[in-house]
C-alpha cells in the first residue's frame, strides 16, 4: 500500500544527510564537550561549529543560541526569564497558542500573574493594535505564536514586535512551525526571544533552541552545570545538536525554493478539495499561511472518522476534533477562530513537507472526496441537510 505522510507539523522525518551526520557523531563524536581532555576539546569544537551553523541560519550570533530539549522547554524558559528578570505581573499572549505556551501562561496565572489572552479574528490573526491596547504599566512579556501549528496562520510578528520595542517590553515568539518555513533574519528583527525545534525541520527530536538576544538578560530555568553559558545545565547532546545543525544548514540552502514548492502543492491541495467537495471550508488565512499547512472543515462529519478512513488508504493526517484531542471539546484554535462545534469537529489537517510529491497530492485528491461522501451518507446531519435541500423538511 502507498504510504503518504501528511503530518509534517506533528513531526518531520529525518533527512538522510542529517541521519548520516548523527550516526557519524554517535560513532566518533560522542564526547562530553565539558571535559578537559582532547576528546572533550573535540566535542567543544563540534558544539561551537553546530551553534554557529544554527545561528547563521536564523541570523543570530552564536552566543544568542541556547540549546534546549525542544520547543516546549524553550517556551517555558522564555516565560521564566520574564518572571525572573522583569518587575511586573502582566503578560500578553493569544488564545491560539500552542499548549506549550498556553499551559505555561495558565500556570503563571495560578502564581498570581495576570495574563491577557488576545482573541483572534476568523483567520487566526491578532493585530499590533490589539497588543498595544492590552499593554499595562506592569506588562513584562508579550509572547505570540509565529506560525500556527493547527491552521497555519502566520502572525504579523514584526509589527507586534515593533509595539513591544516601542514600550521596552520583552517580546518572545514560538517559531517552532515557522523556522524553516518563513524567511527569517534575527539580525534585523524585533524578536527578543524565539523558540524553535529541530524535529520540525527534518532534524532529530529532543533538541531545540531558545534564541535569547544578547541585550536580554537570561535566567536559568534548568539548573546544573556550566553548559550554555551557565544558563542551561545538562551534558550537551552533541549527536542531536550536530543533527540539528545539519538540518538548519539544509533548510538554509534553498529556503525560497522550499517555500515556493510547498506553497504550490499546498494551494493545489486546498483548491482541489474545495472544488471537488461541497460543504467545506478552509480554516486559517488563505495567503498569510505556512507553506505546508492545509486545514479544512467538512460539514456533517467528524474528523477522526476521516482520519481513520484516510489511514486505510495510506494517508496520514490529523484533526482538531474532540475525539482526536482526547477531550470533550474540539481544539482551542478552531474554537478560537469562531467555528461552531460541528464545523470544528469536522476538521482535517494535512501538513506537507519536503518529502511530499505532487503525485501524493493527486492521490489525496482522488481518495479523499469519496471518503467524505461515504461518511456523509452515514451521517444523520447530512440526511437532515438533504431533506432541507429537497424542500422536504
Amino acid at each position, binding site marked *: 500500500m502507498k504510504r503518504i505522510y501528511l503530518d509534517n507539523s506533528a513531526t518531520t522525518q529525518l533527512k538522510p544527510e542529517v541521519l548520516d551526520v548523527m550516526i557519524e557523531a554517535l560513532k566518533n563524536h560522542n564526547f562530553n564537550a565539558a571535559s578537559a581532555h582532547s576528546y572533550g576539546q573535540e566535542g567543544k569544537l563540534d558544539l561551537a561549529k553546530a551553534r554557529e551553523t544554527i545561528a547563521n541560519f536564523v541570523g543570530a550570533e552564536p552566543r544568542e543560541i541556547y540549546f534546549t530539549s525542544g520547543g516546549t522547554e524553550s517556551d517555558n524558559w522564555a516565560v521564566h526569564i520574564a518572571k525572573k528578570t522583569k518587575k511586573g505581573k502582566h503578560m500578553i499572549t493569544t488564545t491560539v497558542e500552542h499548549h506549550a505556551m498556553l499551559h505555561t501562561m495558565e500556570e503563571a496565572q495560578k502564581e498570581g500573574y495576570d495574563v491577557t489572552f488576545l482573541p483572534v479574528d476568523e483567520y487566526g490573526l491578532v493585530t499590533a493594535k490589539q497588543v498595544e491596547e492590552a499593554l499595562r504599566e506592569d506588562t513584562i512579556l508579550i509572547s505570540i505564536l509565529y506560525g500556527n501549528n493547527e491552521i497555519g496562520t502566520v502572525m504579523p510578528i514584526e509589527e507586534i514586535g515593533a509595539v513591544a520595542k516601542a514600550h521596552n517590553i520583552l517580546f518572545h515568539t514560538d517559531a517552532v512551525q515557522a523556522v524553516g518555513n518563513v524567511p527569517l533574519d534575527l539580525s534585523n528583527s524585533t524578536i527578543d526571544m524565539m523558540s524553535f525545534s529541530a524535529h520540525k525541520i527534518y532534524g532529530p527530536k529532543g533538541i531545540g533552541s531558545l534564541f535569547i538576544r544578547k541585550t536580554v538578560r537570561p535566567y536559568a530555568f534548568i539548573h546544573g552545570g556550566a553548559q550554555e553559558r551557565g544558563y542551561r545545565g545538562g551534558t550537551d547532546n552533541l549527536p542531536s545538536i550536530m543533527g540539528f545543525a545539519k538540518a538548519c544548514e539544509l533548510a538554509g540552502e534553498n529556503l525560497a525554493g522550499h517555500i515556493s514548492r510547498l506553497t504550490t502543492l499546498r494551494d493545489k491541495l486546498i483548491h482541489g478539495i474545495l472544488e471537488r467537495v461541497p460543504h467545506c471550508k478552509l480554516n486559517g488565512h488563505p495567503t498569510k499561511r505556512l507553506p505546508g499547512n492545509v486545514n479544512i472543515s467538512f460539514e*456533517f462529519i467528524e*474528523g*477522526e*472518522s476521516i482520519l*481513520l478512513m484516510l489511514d486505510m488508504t495510506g494517508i496520514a493526517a490529523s484533526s482538531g476534533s474532540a*475525539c482526536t484531542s482526547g477531550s470533550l471539546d474540539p481544539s482551542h484554535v478552531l474554537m478560537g477562530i469562531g467555528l461552531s*462545534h*460541528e464545523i470544528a469537529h469536522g476538521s482535517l489537517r494535512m501538513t506537507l513537507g519536503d518529502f511530499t510529491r505532487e503525485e501524493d497530492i493527486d492521490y489525496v485528491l482522488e481518495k479523499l472526496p469519496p471518503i467524505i461522501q461515504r461518511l456523509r451518507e452515514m451521517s444523520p*446531519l447530512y440526511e437532515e441537510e438533504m431533506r432541507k435541500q429537497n424542500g422536504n423538511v
Partner: protein
Amino acid sequence: MAMYNDKVMDHFMNPRNVGEIENPDGVGEVGNIRCGDIMKIYLRINEDEVIEDIKFRTFGCGSAVASSSIATELIKGKTVKEALKITNKDVLRELGGLPVIKVHCSVLAEQALKAAVLDYATKTGKHYEELDGFNPEEEHEH
C-alpha cells in the same frame, strides 16, 4: 492503525445496517453536536413486537460508528423487550473493547434505541417500563 482492534475497524469500515427505513415504526435520535456524536435509529417492528429491521446513521468518530453498527446487529430480530435489555456493556463486549476514552461512545446506541422505541410506544399507545424516566432530550453524560 493500532488505535482500534480489528473488529472495531471492520465495523467502522463496513458498517452494517446503515441507512433509513421508509415509514418506520419508530425513529429516535440522541447525542449532541457539542460532544461530537449523534446517532439516529429507524425501526421496523411487526405485530409480535419483533424488531424485523433496523437502520442507523451516526455522526461521530470511529468508535461511535462501530458501536452503532454492532448494536444494530445485536438488536435486529429481537423483541422490543429483549432489545431494551441490551446495554453498552454488551456493545463493548461484542466489539472486544474500546480505548478507555472512547467507552462513552458505546452508550450512544443504547440511548438511541430507547429513543426509537419511545417513539414507537407513543405512536402505538404501548408502555414499556424499561423506558420509565428516560428522556431522549436529556444531554447524556459524556
